[in-house]
């Protein structure tokens, strides 16, 4: 019984959508075993220029030097990744980078030092045909689960907007759909 953890002085290796930093990690503890069953599936980005925002609790100071995601089999368009404050302000982003590399982890450099707080990891794709590995929970449970752990999405958000609020981010199930992008930030060289 330790959540939310009190901040401590430490250096997380990664901050990801599903590791200990995210409320979403509790989903696997909720009997929603689809998370495990479909962890390795890839699917087309739900809509061109759509952005997803995934909440993570950063409990230690950490210098982020890159963000990474895993591509599916179809490469198309461009990607923008970034980190937002809890009030929806963009703190850092990669800018547009070409979607590149079939079924591999793709990373891009950016630089920010995070202090203990709640943040949102963000990913936007310019293409609706580009595929990414993501978690899926089924058409019924999926939208509700992603909403209930605090995911948000916005349209017309490529490149990632300076303010997600202004871009109209929301956590409606219809906007989120059954799509939970697998995204991480790190200060290490991992790939």
């Amino acid at each position: 019984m330790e959540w939310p953890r009190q901040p401590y002085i430490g250096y997380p290796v990664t901050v990801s959508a599903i590791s200990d930093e995210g409320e979403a990690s509790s989903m696997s503890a909720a009997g929603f075993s689809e998370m495990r069953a479909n962890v390795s599936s890839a699917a087309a980005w739900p809509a061109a220029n759509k952005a997803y925002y995934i909440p993570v609790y950063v409990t230690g100071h950490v210098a982020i030097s890159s963000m990474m995601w895993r591509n599916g089999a179809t490469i198309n368009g461009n990607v923008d990744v970034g980190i937002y404050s809890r009030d929806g302000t963009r703190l850092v982003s990669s800018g547009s980078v070409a979607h590149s590399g079939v079924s591999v982890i793709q990373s891009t450099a950016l630089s920010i030092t995070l202090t203990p707080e709640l943040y949102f990891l963000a990913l936007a794709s310019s293409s609706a045909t580009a595929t990414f590995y993501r978690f899926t929970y089924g058409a019924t449970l999926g939208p509700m689960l992603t909403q209930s752990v605090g995911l948000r999405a916005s349209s017309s958000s490529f490149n990632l907007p300076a303010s997600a609020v202004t871009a109209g981010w929301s956590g409606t199930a219809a906007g989120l759909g059954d799509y939970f992008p697998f995204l991480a930030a790190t200060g290490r060289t991992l790939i």
Partner: protein
Amino acid sequence: MPQVAEIQPLIISSVSRCALGMVQSWTLGSNASSVTQSANNISIMVPFDLTSHMRISHVWWVNGGTCSGTVDVGLYSLDMTLLCSLGSTTAAGTTAVQCTALGTPYLLTPGYYYMAISVSSSTQTFYKLPALQIGVAGWKMLGCGQVASNHPLATGVTLATFVESGTARVPYFGFASEDIS
């Protein structure tokens, strides 16, 4: 001495790690599903601990395939004092998260509490956690309880033993510091 800051949670639910989440991962055998409460006007009480302050502005639950009657969600201290609650609210929107703002946001301080949910109708369905593989003993050992005739949620109630049988399971619900809809 280093200064550390609190991190106000965005969401806490019945399956958060500060509630039932971590333990469930060891013991659940299936997925959440849409089922009714075991009786109308019963409230289910789920313990949790909070290690930082949290300004609670919204509460939410997940409706199942049938919406009927009214729902209430609130927070209790361990002595069963009702700290805040939504009040009777019409269940609306099948198979969806229903998120509603409290009339007045409530500032919860670090400590141990119960989150509670009640419903007026025995046909209203919620997405609920599956039965534990170790049976009702698991819910009891995690601290869950229930209160009969507690809708809308009232203060000064008496916590009774949690009963798990068929539909008597723990709903997936919680509260948030922001609107999640």
